[in-house]
């Protein structure tokens, strides 16, 4: 399990921070102090930006961290983001299936209420999601308002960056409208088995269990 997350973390060297997304997350936390953490991720589990509270001291048991580009090390000092993005992708898969099976249309949000707080996930455009963490005293009405608003803006920012020309000439141009392919630079290595794009996944009829 850990090694899988590490693999993901290594792969994330390829992930380029989306302009404006991180600013949106920090703006959200400043505006709504009851929101304890925010994470923007693609629907297939890649971290786009995160603001999961105060930075933790760098973990000693992760030698893979050394020698990484500064860009990746910036988010790597908070290891919670990676598993959370992966879990969000897994939870979304189930949520999409539930939505599909019950005919509720396109996915909008997912709210998990635990004894000690809430985990809320909002669709941010077609290829990304915003996950927010709040404690049990949180005002859910406000969580929804802020979450929907910020997710909408993140979706717009991603759509805008998708239309801008892809920066690296080495990677092939991303197909328009593809899931999680908001830029050529974020495409995972070719040998990685990719999950099918979400739109396609959604159209597949749920197979009998």
């Amino acid at each position, binding site marked *: 399990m850990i090694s899988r997350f590490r693999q993901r973390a290594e792969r994330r060297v390829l992930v380029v921070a989306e302009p404006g997304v991180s600013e949106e997350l920090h703006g959200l936390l400043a505006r709504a102090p009851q929101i304890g953490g925010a994470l923007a991720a693609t629907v297939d589990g890649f971290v786009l930006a995160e603001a999961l509270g105060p930075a933790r001291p760098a973990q000693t048991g992760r030698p893979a961290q050394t020698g990484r580009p500064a860009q990746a090390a910036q988010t790597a000092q908070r290891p919670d983001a990676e598993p959370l993005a992966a879990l969000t992708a897994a939870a979304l898969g189930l949520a999409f299936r539930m939505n599909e099976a019950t005919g509720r249309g396109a996915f909008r949000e997912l709210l998990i209420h635990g004894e000690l707080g809430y985990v809320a996930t909002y669709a941010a455009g077609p290829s990304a999601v915003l996950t927010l963490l709040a404690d049990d005293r949180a*005002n*859910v*009405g*406000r*969580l*929804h*308002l802020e979450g929907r608003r910020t997710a909408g803006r993140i979706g717009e920012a991603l759509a805008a960056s998708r239309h801008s020309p892809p920066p690296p000439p080495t990677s092939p141009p991303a197909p328009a409208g593809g899931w999680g392919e908001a830029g050529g630079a974020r495409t995972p290595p070719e040998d990685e088995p990719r999950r099918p794009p979400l739109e396609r996944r959604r159209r597949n009829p749920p197979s009998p269990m």
Partner: protein
Amino acid sequence: MANTEASLKEAMGSIDGAIGVALVDYTSGMALGTVGGGKNFDLEVAAAGNTDVVRAKLRTMEHLGLQDEIEDILITLGTQYHLIRLLRAKSGNGLFLYIALDAGKSNLAMARHQLRRIEAHLEV
């Protein structure tokens, strides 16, 4: 005894100058029902925001050591009155009624009296 929908409609219809009315759960900040409002007055936003108002006041009372309860809260704007009335019946624990009034068209004393009556008959 009247249900939520009927009570909100009655408040909207019988209180002069009413812009919008909502029944709000202040443990979650979500509205159990809304009537009125519209594009220029989002009652969901009002429900979430006024939940913070009620919670702040309850916390302040606790810090002051007051063993009391809030009956209602009046907020006077330039052109509007906003009235918050906490439900006192056991079934309405953690809920409040919220009404926004046009200051020029409403009678505050009458509105407060009517809201009290509607709250007393509300069964959630």
